[in-house]
């Protein structure tokens, strides 16, 4: 496959689709680990400590993930801008709701909401984590005799504004995934008339279950400390 293959409209879409599918897989594993915080704080601490200190996760998977996130957003902005430029004069009267869903037409809005959420999420968890581990140099996972991970997560959800922000973000993530999954399979050429409905249903189930799971976990930590 030549380099120029990726500099085509289909090439861009394939890259967008593959990075999106990769991020969906990441979301699922993130949810599984977060779910442990509801079932067993010790199990959650153990899993978090493993993910936070394992060199393979830290120095291979984490950079790949960060690259995937950045790539998906930059490519999303780039394609949205390019697409907007393809029609210099808009219709005076347009009725897009007659032929397509709001979700499919506004991936940039749902994507931007998720991006804003990622900013909060990084400030809440990722930056403090990097600070403790690599700036302060404390790889013990302990803080005042307690494991950091569960306590950090639990305490973060004491504040109502943060809880509300998380819920809103996950609703938009759900909308993003509803179109994103089936769209990615169409972009890579897997979807057919025989499989499209099944992909559509699976995508919707994933888009409802995974964000709802994150919301329920946040609610659990909020409720158990009020």
């Amino acid at each position, binding site marked *: *496959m*030549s380099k120029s*293959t990726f500099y*085509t*409209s*289909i090439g*861009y*879409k*394939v890259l967008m689709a593959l990075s999106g599918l990769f991020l969906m897989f990441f979301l699922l594993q993130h949810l599984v680990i977060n779910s442990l915080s509801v079932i067993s704080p010790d199990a959650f601490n153990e899993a978090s400590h493993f993910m936070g200190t394992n060199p393979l996760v830290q120095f291979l998977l984490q950079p790949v993930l960060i690259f995937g996130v950045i790539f998906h957003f930059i490519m999303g902005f780039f*394609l949205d801008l*390019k*697409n907007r*430029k*393809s*029609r*210099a*004069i*808009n*219709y*005076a*009267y*347009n*009725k*897009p709701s*007659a*032929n*397509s*869903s709001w979700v*499919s*037409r506004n*991936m940039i809005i749902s994507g931007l909401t998720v991006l804003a959420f990622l900013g909060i999420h990084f400030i809440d968890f990722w930056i403090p984590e990097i600070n403790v581990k690599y700036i302060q140099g404390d790889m013990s996972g302990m803080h005042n005799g307690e494991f950091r991970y569960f306590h950090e997560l639990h305490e973060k959800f004491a504040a109502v504004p943060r809880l509300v922000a998380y819920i809103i973000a996950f609703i938009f993530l759900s909308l993003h995934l509803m*179109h994103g999954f*089936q*769209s990615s399979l*169409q*972009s*890579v*050429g*897997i*979807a*057919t*008339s025989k499989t*499209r409905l099944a992909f559509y249903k699976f995508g919707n189930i994933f888009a409802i279950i995974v964000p709802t799971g994150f919301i329920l976990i946040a609610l659990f930590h909020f409720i158990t400390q009020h």
Partner: protein
Amino acid sequence: MNLTLKIWRQKSNTEKGSLETYPISDVSEDMSFLEMLDVLNEELIEKAIDPVAFDHDCREGICGMCSLYINGEAHGPDRRVTTCQLHMRKFNDGDTIFIEPFRANAFPVVKDLVVDRSAFDRIQQAGGYVSVNTSGNTQDANSIPIPKDDADTAFDAATCIGCGACVASCKNSSAMLFVSAKVSQFSLLPQGQVEAKERVINMVNKMDEEGFGNCTNTGACEVECPKGISLDNISRMNREFITANVKK
């Protein structure tokens, strides 16, 4: 019926256009949309006003010449019909109807409601053909067995009349439905498979060169297509484009 028409008027590609309002009365519900415009034009001519320019040819829904973006939809509110097959019974007395040209940078306005869709011709020229010499040595069509499903799917793709409704309806002005239909109608048949790789690469590259946007799979094109060209064709083209580049 008495109607108010808001029609895009633009003298040429280099001049700015605007929506002009024209009241029209005694419109029969049995008229086609284009016949209604014919009546309007006769009235305009009588008043020494430049008639509204719009594309049309066969008026039987098969040539792909008529276009028009009517009340926010390509070919108007009806499904699986071109503008020439849209009838005034789809509207109500007192309605205001917005009539605009198909909008896309790749479809520049020539005059009023007429747009230049020659970008489609150039995409076709880039690969929408088979290099089979049929002059004097045409084979019997049944000499090469073709699975019925493939023949039907190829035929369905070939029903694309190249009107450009897919581009006009797509929020990104993407031509993927048109190009994929043209790719599919050949690639599913043995005669077209010989040049399948070059075809899909050349046609996609030409499509990009012409300035169409990227497909974001909203499905608007399939809904608005007067021939019901399936999104399956886009998926097939994506698949063929990827494999053609992998095996290049």
